[in-house]
Every structure is written in C-alpha cells, then in structure tokens.
C-alpha cells in the first residue's frame, strides 16, 4: 500500500484526488497497468489528476507521450494487445477527435474482429463538459458520439466516491472503457471509502428518493439535479434523482423503474438534446414504461449549437431553474394529457 491509500479507509477528497488515488492503487496492484498521455508526468496533468505518480512509479509506468492523440490511443491498443493495461489521458474533450478513428474503428472492434482472441483493456480518461471558463475546444460533451459505437464502455462519475471506484473498475475491466470525467467537478469534495467497493460502475443509482417525478442526470449535472430536487421539495414536489453513471451499457431498467414509480421523467445532460444521449434514455424508458407515465419524457440539455463562448455558458448549460421548468412542464400533464 502506498502512503496515500494506507491512511484511513474513509477519507474526504476532491474528485480529482480520488481519481489520483484510484490510479495510484491500480498502478500498485498490477505492474502491467501503465499511464500514458501528454503532460501527465512531471506536471501531473493539466488538472493535476496524475500528480506525483511519475515520481512514485517511474517514467516507464507514467509515460509522458509525444503530443499526438491518435498516437496515444494507437500505441495504447498495441500495448494492450500484448497484455498491458494502458490508461490513456486525453487532455481535453475537444482534443479526442484526432484519436476518434483509433477509438471507433480499431479499439472498439478488435475483440470482435479477432473472434475474441485479443482483448484490449484500454481505459481512456477524458475530462469533459462545460463551466470551467476556458476557450473553445476546452468544453465539449461528445458522449453520444462514442455511445453509438458498439465495443466501447462509457461511464461518467459524479462524486469522489464514484470517481475512485469507477476508475478502478474501468482499469480492471477487460473491455475498452471511456471514463468521461466531469471536469467542473474535479474540486468537488466527498467521502471516499477505499475499502468498500462502490456499486458496479456499469449501473445507475437512485441518489435521492421521491414520489412525484424523476430527474435522470449524469456526471457534471448530478449535483445540479440534486439541488433542483431539493428546491422542488420546498414547493411540495417530491423529486427522485437517478445518477445514470453508465452510458454504455445503459442501466435503462433502473431508470425506467424510477420513472414508472414517479410517473414523470426529466433527462438532463450538458450535450445538445438534438441527437443526444437523452433521446436514447427517453426512447427506452417510453418503451418500458409507457403505460405508467403521466407525461412524455422531457429533456433538458444544450442547444443545437457549438458550446458558446464561456461567458455565455450559463445560458447554454442546464441549471437548477431549467430542470425545475422541465419538472413543471411534466406536471402540466395528467395521465398523458395536458391538464
């Protein structure tokens, strides 16, 4: 055990530090786990998520790569074919596209193309989403683009505890896993229990019980959804909050169960709603629970535009009020008909 993880099993950590602890613990657990990415060594990553890891594990385990995203992913695939477990860092969401070909035509398909002979357990960490006040290409929400590719697993934690365990579970998974890290929540503190595994990374979780409506959200919007539910309770609305957590596979059963119970579902994400992942959730929940729903599944998300300049992101990204507005629209229906 390393210095960090030998401390008390339950610690309060910012989400970024929880990921750091997860990477540290996996590097310690398996000598074939490697980290690769730009600036992840001496600098510790631009968000310091890998801080100190190269010092402790060496430059051969924590590899500062050339500035080449396709190269980072393509070589990760080659290392994985040989039995290693590379954890590749993409510095910002908007920079993943030079590697998109390697991820979608190669990484996602190799197990299938080889009839199962070769596994490629590559983990890809991508800081994503808005609200960090940076310039263009530093705020993107491309999860739906990857969700459409079979062969990839896609998860997104929303708390420090999930960030720790979901990262560890991604690394030991034999499939390629993309971990979309909600970068605006990197500094969100929470209790991390390193002794007791959190729920399975590929499931959804009900974070707050309610009876009148459900908000399903993931990653950066989960704290917003919880705050919206709290605000709604003041107005006498009992709102349940489901953290989707896993985009592929999607735990549609848990979401549909909640929607069937509360009879109203609002899906929220930062990505544009048009063609977005919320549409997949809405369609699946409708198929599963149509007769139980009092209102159509409503979506809250970004607009059909590129992320606007960060000075306007407050008008683009769903906030508490936008979620409450959607909940109210759902309450306008009674048994599927507008009252």
């Amino acid at each position: 055990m390393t210095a960090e993880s030998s401390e008390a099993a339950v610690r309060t950590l910012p989400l970024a530090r929880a990921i750091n602890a997860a990477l540290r613990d996996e590097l310690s657990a398996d000598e074939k786990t490697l980290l690769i990415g730009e600036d992840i060594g001496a600098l510790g990553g631009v968000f310091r998520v890998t801080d100190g890891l190269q010092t402790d594990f060496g430059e051969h385990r924590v590899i500062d790569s050339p500035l080449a995203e396709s190269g980072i992913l393509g070589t990760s695939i080659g290392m994985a074919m040989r039995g290693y477990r590379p954890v590749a860092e993409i510095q910002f969401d908007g920079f993943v596209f030079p590697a998109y070909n390697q991820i979608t035509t190669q990484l996602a398909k190799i197990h299938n193309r080889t009839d199962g002979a070769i596994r490629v357990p590559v983990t890809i960490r991508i800081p994503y989403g808005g609200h960090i006040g940076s310039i263009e290409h530093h705020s993107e929400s491309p999860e739906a683009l990857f969700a459409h590719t079979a062969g990839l697993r896609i998860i997104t934690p929303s708390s420090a505890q999930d960030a720790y365990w979901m990262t560890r579970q991604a690394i030991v998974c034999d499939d390629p896993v993309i971990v979309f890290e909600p970068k605006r929540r990197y500094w969100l503190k929470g209790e991390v229990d390193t002794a007791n595994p959190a729920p399975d990374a590929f499931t959804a979780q009900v974070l707050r019980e309610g009876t009148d409506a459900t908000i399903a959200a993931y990653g950066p919007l989960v704290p917003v959804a919880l705050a919206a539910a709290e605000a709604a309770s003041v107005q006498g609305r009992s709102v349940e909050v489901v953290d989707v957590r896993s985009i592929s596979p999607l735990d549609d059963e848990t979401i549909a169960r909640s929607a069937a119970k509360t009879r109203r579902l609002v899906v929220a994400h930062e990505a544009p709603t048009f063609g977005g992942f919320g549409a997949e959730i809405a369609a699946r929940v409708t198929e599963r629970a149509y007769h139980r729903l009092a209102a159509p599944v409503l979506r809250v998300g970004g607009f059909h535009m590129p992320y606007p300049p960060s000075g306007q992101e407050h008008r683009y990204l769903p906030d508490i009020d936008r979620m409450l507005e959607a909940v109210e629209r759902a309450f306008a229906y009674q048994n599927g008909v507008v009252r």
Partner: protein
Amino acid sequence: MQPVQLLAEDGTLTEHETYSPYLQGLDDDALRGLYRHMAVERRFDAEATSLQRQGQLALWAPATGQEAAQIGTIAALNPTDRVFPTYREHAMALYRGISPEELMTLFRATAHSGWDPNAYNFHLYAIVLASQTLHAAGWAMGIQQDLRLNALPRDRAADEIVLACLGDGASSQGDIHESMVFAASYQLPMLYLIQNNHWAISVPARTQSRVPLADRAAGYGFEGIRADGNDVLASYAVAAAAAESIRAGKGPKLIESVTYRIGAHTTADDPSKYRAAEELQEWSSKDPITRYRTWLTAADKADQAFFDEVKEEAEDLAADLRRTVPAMQSIDIERVFDTVYAEPHRQVETERAWLKDYEAGFAEEEGRK
C-alpha cells in the same frame, strides 16, 4: 537514392559490400524455399482473383508482383517477431503458416479475420490505412516494458522486433507520422516496410511524396533504405541487416521496397483506366520470380525437378481452394454477439434475446403450416 539491388533484372548476381554477406545466412534449401514461397503465392493469388470473378469472394487484393518484397523480408525475421500487415501481405501470411482458407475469410466476408494473431505472431489485416502502424509501435513499447519486467519468454530472448507494413498510399496518413514519432522518441525495436508498388488505387506514388519514401525516415531521426523490391535476395539482405541493427538496440529502421503491383488494387478497379500499358510492360520485365528462377538455375541451386515439384504444389493448393472456398460459411451472428465485448453487456444481451425470440416466431409459423 538508388535501391539496393543484388540480383539484376537478367538474373545475374552482383556483389554488394554491405549486403552480400547477409546472403551467407541462406543455405541452398533456404534459397529454394524463397522461390517456392513466391511461386506458390503467385498461384494462390491467381486462384483468388478468379474465385472473386466467379462470385466466390466479395473482393480480392492481388499481390502479384510483390512476392519478392514480402518473402525476402519475412524470411529475414524470426518467427517470434510480430508482424502488423496491411491487407496485401498474402505472401507473408502464407509464409507464417496461416492457411489459404483462413486468409480468404476476410475476402469472402465470412469473418473479419480467420486467424488468431497470437498463434502466428501475425496481426489482422488492416483496412483502415496506417492504423496498424501505431498498434505496432504500441506492441514495441510492450516489448520494452517486458524487458524492464524481465517478462520476455526465454525463447524470445531480448531480441524481439516488430515489422510494420504499409504501402505508398498509406504513407500519406497521419497515423504513420505519429507512429514514426513514437518509434524514434522511444527508440522502439521496429522495422517499417513500405512496399511502394507505385499506385494507391488510381493515384500515383508521386502524389503521396515528392521525395523517395525512404528519405522520410531521416526526418524522424532514423535510417531509411531503398531496396529493389523485385529482388528477393536484396529484400532479404536489407531486411536482415536492418533487423540485426534493431536487435542490437539501435532503434527503428525504414525500408522502402520499390516494387510494382501488376494487377488491380482490388478486383473492384480497372488499372487500364489509370495506368499506361508501357508502364505495366516495363515492370513485367522486372518480374521477381522469373529473375530469381534464372539465377537459381544458372547457379545450379535448383533443377527442373524442383521447379516441377513447386508447380505441382501450387496447382494442388489452387485445386484445394476451388473446392474449399465455395463451401466456406459465414460465422454465426451468435459469435458476433459473443465477441462485441469481453464481458457481458446489458444491451447486447437484450438484443441477442430479442433476435432469438423473433426468429423462433418464424420457426413456429413454419411449424403450423
């Protein structure tokens, strides 16, 4: 840069100070073996082309004309060296022991790959150009990790290298640039083989590069060599010399093998629409197999009985293919469900169950009739 040539077009052997000594590694059996592999591959290739014309293959990518480049290079490597091919390395694949039927699966579209790459140290064919050159670099990084962990199997000693194949067209892709950057930065044990067959489908090599492709290596900080890819002895010697240097830990090398694709890019195109007949004729006169046979005969390394025996072997292989290929069946879609993920995935399982129920419904319907 003149390509290294040992065997002239008329079949005469010349001495080369640097490369001729590497031919000492080939005894008479091995010399005959080079011929046998080239001749059998050419017959295989012709049969595959005609099977495609008969509708038995979805597509075929002929390698006729490139036999020497491929056989010379692969013969210079160890069986434990990992090969990352593009989609035209049929001679290399057969040399490594992949069966003609296994090789046909992709082109008959009965499977995406018919062989286990780990069984032959020969990776899947790559359709997305140059993508495999990064996997090769990653594999080479894995070799370095294994050395660090003392995890290399004893029979691979410390000298395992990686061969990354690409064509002149793929040399324009971004991934080959990134691969060479990684190879140079980490001094990876990699050999790049660019088979410059002069045409990327209908686009000539001059559209890919204004300088010989071998010259590009210098820009990354390693050596590039041009070899006559229609000369199996030069192809062998240049690859053997490069492999020796790479095994000695001196970093990557690039060989541009100057050769020519005699046939179409694939059976889907018609080279007469984009290539001059004179060019084809000129290159046909440089044929790698004819040239080598002339030398083998003159040097008294092989007699008519040997050539007859090879011809019979090649004809047998072709006859086998005519019989076996039409009988090849696609893998079941159940196998595809099985291998999308290594671990269970909720949506895959749901859709698998749905298809099973749906198809069972038709079976019941049939039963009631």
